[in-house]
């Protein structure tokens, strides 16, 4: 096709696009390697704070990473999720694809796999992510993702206990929770 190769990615992460184009067009690398190289740029540049280390701390202030790579020729794939202490997450996903028969590894066990594969382990927190977490705590942990718990998650940091199932109002359990989280340019999967 006259229109190939093609690189397209979500958001305005143009450095990642250029790197993938350079890989697939100038260096004639595979589409798999080009995706890995392109997305790795964002991991290093911490694109919008939504990719890579030092962003999106969880309730404990920890940053964890998720990534996936899929090969449309073989329908093989590799993914890692809730990965701790490893920065090069899509490169690790490629190792799941290449060196295992599995599709996804998660959590601390994925970190152990990374170490065995020769990846460096290091904390993923930064001063920025720590400040973000502190601000959230000082704002009574708002917003958060808890529902049907006590004390009231809209006013308290917990610890939370579940209310009884009989007390759950199923009708009100749909849209409201999603509207307060503030998904947008700087908070997304």
């Amino acid at each position, binding site marked *: 096709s*006259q*229109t*190939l*190769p*093609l*690189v*397209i*990615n*979500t*958001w*305005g*992460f*143009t450095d990642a*696009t*250029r790197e*993938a*184009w350079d890989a697939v067009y100038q260096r004639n690398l595979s*589409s798999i390697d*080009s995706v890995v190289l*392109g997305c790795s740029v*964002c*991991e290093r540049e911490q*694109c919008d704070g*939504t*990719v890579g*280390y030092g962003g*999106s701390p*969880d309730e*404990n202030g*920890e*940053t*964890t*990473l*998720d*990534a*996936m*790579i*899929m090969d*449309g*020729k073989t*329908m093989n794939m590799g*993914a*890692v999720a*809730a990965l701790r202490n490893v920065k090069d997450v*899509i490169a690790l996903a490629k190792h799941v694809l290449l060196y295992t028969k599995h*599709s*996804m590894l*998660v959590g601390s066990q994925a970190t152990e796999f990374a170490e065995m594969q020769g990846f460096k382990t290091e904390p993923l927190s930064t001063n920025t992510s720590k400040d973000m977490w502190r601000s959230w705590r000082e704002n009574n942990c708002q917003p*958060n*993702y*808890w529902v049907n718990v006590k004390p009231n998650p809209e006013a308290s940091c917990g610890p939370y206990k579940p209310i009884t199932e009989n007390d759950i109002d199923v009708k009100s359990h*749909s*849209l409201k929770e*999603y509207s307060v*989280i503030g*998904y*947008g340019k700087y*908070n*997304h*999967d």
Partner: protein
Amino acid sequence: TIGMIVIDRAGNIASGTSTNGARHKIPGRVGDSPIPGAGSYADNEVGAAAATGDGDVLMRFLPSFLAVELMRQGHTPKEAGKIALSRITKHYSEFMGAIVVADKNGNYGAACHGIDEFPFSVYNLASNHVQLIKIGC
């Protein structure tokens, strides 16, 4: 989150995602990004798609898989993306998300919901440089 599709000269398609997820998530939470068919999906016979947004909702609808299947049925990339997101907004009208879609021939499109505009980045022979394209949602 970044979601990316690359098609090489030989027509081999790959897709991928990388993210640090949602801010202040409950520890252990994973969104759509590493889930095949949700965060992204690729099939050399048809094309690929990559989604972004509220991963707790996206992962329930497998929008990337759906977009690829819609192209298999004859829809354009743009149509496939719009229909894939409409399946979500039917149930979650305040959902925020977007999807980029490309067919095996290099045609592409995007769709979004819940934000004013969605930017995405494209590089191909026709453009000969990286293009930052913004669509209204």
